[in-house]
């Protein structure tokens, strides 16, 4: 594929990038490195199989099954591996529990490390400079950007994902959910509550 840069710059930076990306894929395909259908399949798998619904199921299970919760906090990857209905998870997943005394929050200051299999691909804000720079220095200020306020004496623990370990926050179970099923509870678990920048929804709170 060719693209002529002599014509006037009437296309946006985005379409410039789009042309370059297409050119790269063409070269990789022509050289026999990748099969475009395999790239399509990767994208489709990300779009359909991973996402916060996986993490929500794990959290809901931990809220209702004390033995599972104990195993999850001891070895996240191993415990999740015992759940047939959740997509497979890689190694080195550490699950950290929020309590009244301690609130956990996860960041990757150096790049964008995030538990993809549990939460899907990270949102733009997680990968962007404002969050990465401030989460470790001013976590309460960052939480305020999410309209989250914690009691003054609650300890905030920030986990900077600097290696291949990945962190998932186990949020506190909302009050008023006694007797709820795992499926009902999973509906309350938000992505941000598993990053530590939000809380699960309360019963009756709109999605």
């Amino acid at each position, binding site marked *: *594929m*060719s693209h002529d840069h002599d014509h006037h710059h009437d296309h946006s930076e*985005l379409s410039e*990038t*789009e042309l*370059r*990306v*297409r050119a*790269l*894929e*063409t*070269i*990789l395909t022509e*050289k*026999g*490195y*990748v*099969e475009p259908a*395999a*790239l399509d399949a*990767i*994208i489709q*798998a*990300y*779009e359909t199989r991973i996402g916060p619904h996986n993490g929500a199921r794990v959290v809901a299970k931990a809220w209702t099954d004390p033995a599972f919760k104990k195993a999850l906090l001891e070895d996240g990857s191993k415990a999740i591996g015992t759940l047939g209905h959740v997509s*497979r998870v*890689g*190694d*080195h997943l550490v699950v950290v529990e929020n309590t009244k005394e301690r609130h956990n929050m996860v*960041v990757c*200051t*150096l*790049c*964008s490390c995030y538990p*993809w299999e549990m939460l899907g691909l990270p949102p*733009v804000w997680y*990968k*962007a*400079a*404002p*969050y990465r*720079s*401030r989460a*470790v*220095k001013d976590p309460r200020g960052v939480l305020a*950007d*999410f309209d989250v306020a914690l009691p*003054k*004496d*609650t*300890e905030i*623990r*920030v*986990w*900077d*994902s*600097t*290696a*291949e*370990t990945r962190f998932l926050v186990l949020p506190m179970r909302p009050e008023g959910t006694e007797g709820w099923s795992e499926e009902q509870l999973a509906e309350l678990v938000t992505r941000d509550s598993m990053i530590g920048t939000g809380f699960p929804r309360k019963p009756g709170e709109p999605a």
Partner: protein
Amino acid sequence: MNGVHDMGGMDGFGKVEPEANEPMFHADWEARVLAMVRAMGAAGAFNIDTSRFYRETLPPHVYLSSSYYKKWFLGLEEMLIEKGYLTREEVAAGRAIQPAKALKHGKFDLANVERVMVRGKFDRPAPQPAKFEIGERVRAKNIHPATHTRLPRYVRGHVGVVELNHGCHVFPDTAAMELGEHPQWLYTVVFEGSELWGPDGDPTTKVSIDAFEPYLDPA
């Protein structure tokens, strides 16, 4: 390297702005870039640490002004050129000109897709016993390698406590430079906010990093 990617503790980037109902990709090309990075990595063209290093070595103004997947694209293209999988001439022409370089794991085709859907394993057998115990006080070394490292600047020189031992893992500092895996013990080390940010720091804050043993001294 002391690059702009090492952002922990920097000021001036403004508020965090979550996007309501954010789509997984903001343009089709972003998805193609993600897929190409995953595919070429799985085919053996580079490891995850090398790919991070190529994004970190983008010029600072480019790093700071490019969207996330634009950084991925720029890093991927440069890395594939430098590793000999394509040439600048081919990039300029937008088509293959030179013969292909053999990939360690062969062409990435449909049969390989499942492999990229689960993260790789990074733990390795321990070449020697761990130096530090849980609960031990350690000081993050004051080191400034010009190449890839996962020791962020904001903890260097500061004292923390070993909280978890994750076993021995591939050492990114050497793996990124293709100098071998050199597995090292990996610990979660937790620092008091006031230790990192001084007396004005929030006293209720603690920050941990996952630190490889060569990053740490006894304290």
